[in-house]
């Protein structure tokens, strides 16, 4: 292959094959297709050319991308908010000229895509602790977000914060922030998008506008704001410890579990639907202690309880088991019973908690003798707490040495309603 000046994405090139040639804009090859050059034809269509078929590439014109200047003006009449951008669909944008991804990580780039947001508030501060797909995050990332949030929350010029985040593990982050941020004084709003922001139908606009309304509201809690239904009309505010991604692709992927939404938010109104903690003048603290050696496992029929041994050998301190129904795993009567192993493992100091695979509803080990048998081994039954929230809370509780050294103390903390993770009454 003969290449005259190495082409850069965005350059106008002519690519010669044996029989014919194509003129177009040279694009970045997709990550998984390194053997292919992508070319944008005049018509706007992209085609691929096998590198091995290419005879010669001529650069006809270097790309001349001019940096545009966007000035975001502050309006003294509008309330100020801060944003923490962590990655995900809501902050990534395909660059059609080059084929790669651009990040929205400055007020200017945000303004370009979400001008409506700036009609409601001034986004005075934007911080980007990292840019990650949410499945790549762990507790250290939650800690970073919490620290940044604390800084903004204690800034008297800022009314509230919006955190944009990937959807996959958003509910873990929201649970973590609920436990990490103490004496919360202002709204901490997490939001997302399920449809990429480069399409006109993106759900990001409504989510962000409603998040802005929420961020200047009276609700001093950690909560997720997102589409309430498939319609682009209003969002729900969903408490950070009682929310779960329940759909892989719909706009209204996040649903409240075992609770009601805190509020219904349209582009210009906020209607409160349940109790909440009010905005106040506290100084927000962080409590970021976390024990990494905690696990979440899902019980399935016929599962060998030896899996628990694996975790013990690896030095785990606590395990949340997603149990069936009201809180069951295989008992003594099963071919592979768990009762004995659960007892052994707890005797060796590992904390075992139970959450329900049903997602909806409350655990109750006393209804069936099987439940009682498991309960009697000392497993902590976490009522109506979500399994994901339970994992985060267990890591947080065990991160505190003063609690972790005493099983009774751990149990007391796990069952204490710290951040709205329990509901006393279930209406549904």
């Amino acid at each position: 292959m003969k290449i005259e000046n190495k082409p850069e994405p965005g350059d106008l090139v002519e690519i010669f094959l044996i029989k014919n040639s194509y003129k177009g804009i040279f694009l970045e090859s997709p990550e998984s297709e390194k053997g292919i050059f992508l070319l944008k034809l005049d018509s706007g269509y992209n085609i691929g050319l096998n590198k091995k078929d290419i005879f010669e590439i001529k650069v006809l014109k270097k790309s001349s991308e001019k940096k545009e200047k966007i000035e975001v003006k502050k309006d003294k009449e509008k309330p100020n908010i801060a944003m923490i951008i962590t990655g995900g669909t809501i902050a990534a944008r395909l660059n059609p000229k080059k084929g790669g991804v651009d990040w929205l990580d400055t007020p200017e780039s945000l303004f370009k895509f979400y001008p409506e947001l700036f009609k409601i508030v001034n986004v005075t501060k934007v911080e980007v602790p990292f840019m990650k797909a949410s499945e790549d995050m762990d507790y250290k990332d939650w800690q970073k977000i919490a620290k940044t949030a604390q800084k903004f929350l204690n800034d008297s010029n800022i009314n509230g914060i919006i955190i944009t985040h990937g959807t996959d593990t958003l509910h873990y982050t929201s649970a973590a922030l609920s436990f990490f941020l103490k004496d919360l004084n202002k709204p901490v709003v997490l939001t997302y998008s399920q449809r990429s922001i480069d399409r006109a139908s993106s759900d990001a606009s409504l989510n962000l506008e409603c998040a802005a309304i929420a961020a200047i509201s009276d609700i001093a809690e950690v909560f997720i704001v997102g589409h309430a239904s498939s319609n682009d009309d209003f969002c729900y505010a969903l408490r950070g410890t009682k929310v779960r991604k329940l759909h892989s692709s719909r706009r209204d992927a996040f649903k409240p579990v075992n609770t009601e939404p805190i509020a219904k938010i349209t582009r210009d109104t906020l209607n409160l639907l349940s109790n909440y903690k009010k905005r106040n003048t506290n100084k927000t603290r962080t409590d970021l202690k976390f024990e990494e050696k905690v696990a979440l496992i899902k019980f399935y029929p016929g599962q060998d309880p030896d899996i628990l041994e694996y975790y013990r050998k690896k030095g785990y301190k606590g395990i949340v088991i997603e149990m069936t129904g009201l809180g069951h795993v295989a008992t003594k009567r099963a071919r592979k019973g768990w009762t004995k192993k659960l007892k052994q493992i707890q005797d060796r100091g590992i904390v075992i908690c139970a959450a329900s695979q049903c997602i909806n509803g409350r655990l109750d080990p006393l209804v069936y003798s099987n439940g009682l048998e498991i309960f009697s081994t000392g497993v902590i039954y976490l009522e109506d707490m979500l399994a994901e929230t339970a994992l985060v809370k267990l890591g947080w509780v065990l991160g505190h040495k003063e609690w972790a050294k005493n099983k009774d103390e751990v149990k007391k903390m796990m069952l204490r309603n710290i951040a709205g993770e329990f509901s006393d009454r279930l209406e549904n």
Partner: protein
Amino acid sequence: MELDYNTLGLKSGLEIHQQLDSSKLFCNCPSLLRKEEPKFTVKRKLHAVAGESGEIDVAAAHESLAEKEFTYEGYDTICLVELDEEPPHVVNKEALEIALQIALLLNCKIIPITQIMRKTVIDGSNTSGFQRTVLIARDGELEISSGKIGIATLCLEEDAARIIDKEKGIFRLDRLGIPLVEIATKADIKNPQQAKEAALKLGELLRLVKVKRGIGTIRQDVNLSIKGGQRVELKGFQDIRNIERAMEIEVQRQEGLVKQKKSIAEVRAVNSDGSSRFLRPLPGAARMYPETDLPLLKISREKIDKAKKEIQKVSKEELKIEGLSDDMIKLLSNHNKLDEFKEMLSIINNPLLIAKTILIFPKEIASKEKKSLAEVGKTLNRDVLGNVLENVAKGKIDEGNIKHILEKIVKGESYEGVIDNKKEDINFIEERIAKIIKEKPGLSINAYMGLVMKEFKGKISGQEANEIIRKYVK
């Protein structure tokens, strides 16, 4: 006034959109249009999205001047993909096969590696805010009587949602996602007659493969410009016969605009009288970006070979199955009568007779009456010929009588008049039947039927004979 298209420098191309007969392009929903009340509705808003350099596409900007709320009507034949609530599934295999067959029929070069694109459309007709489209092939040709028309591109794309109420922004999702091929010719068309012929020819060719039939399943757009003017796209021809008229009118309008230096690139909707009205500015190439939810589309040798085999089979079957000679097929094709031929086949299953009726007889009559074939064709139009053949099928007209009847019509007798003559015939036949019954009394109705049909075969239908016999046999 006859326009001199050469001097005006008319350059024109066609864009044909044809629905394919498979399930939807990016999901597994049936391609089914619904008439009932919708089962549910969804409300959405669309936002103009800035392009890379910050500019909003000119067409998209025009559409988004007022941010509008759209309502989408759904059914049990709609899934999350049409609702823009689930990523697209891989391209429907059957639709791709059909598109490849069409590409081959047009001698196009198929593009082995290509990318599914999103074409920004924010008039509400797509829930996603874009139409998915992929360039499958390019550089083909279509033969018409005056020569070859180049085929620039062939794309496979998804159809848009149906407008139910434009004012209120209500769309129905049934049509969204039905596979379409978009065939764009090069600007090789020099006058309106060529445009019409090319459109008819393309329509005929498309019917060789698995495409949808009926109103709204094929749509033609015309692109044109004259010397010194901008490109104009004419959209929404209700009737292909309108193409010539609409082009004439637009060329005249352009002539005026060019003189005043006011010609702009625009999309215009054609009215039923052939005039047109402004719809929106012509979109730029800025409105295309890749469908990031799908991998590159790779069209393998095997797929192309399979399509080739299918094409050979299709054309042979289509042409041979009717029992026509190759010459007759060619003749029908050259006179753009394949379509009409197939229509008539549904009336009467006698290919040779149809070929004679729509092609040979009109020719013979034309030369006998010293009229042009076109003139004869005006009188012996599809409706008349269809009606005659229908009566042949019903046994009301004898096969041998067709040419005679057509001649009478061309000579100026009304079609009804010709049929009236036939009524007299029936009165005469009835007399004869009464006589037969009188001469041979006491036979069964079936026996009389045998006698009557033997004598009047072709002149009277079995049902008519039966009715008359029953009048005289008690």
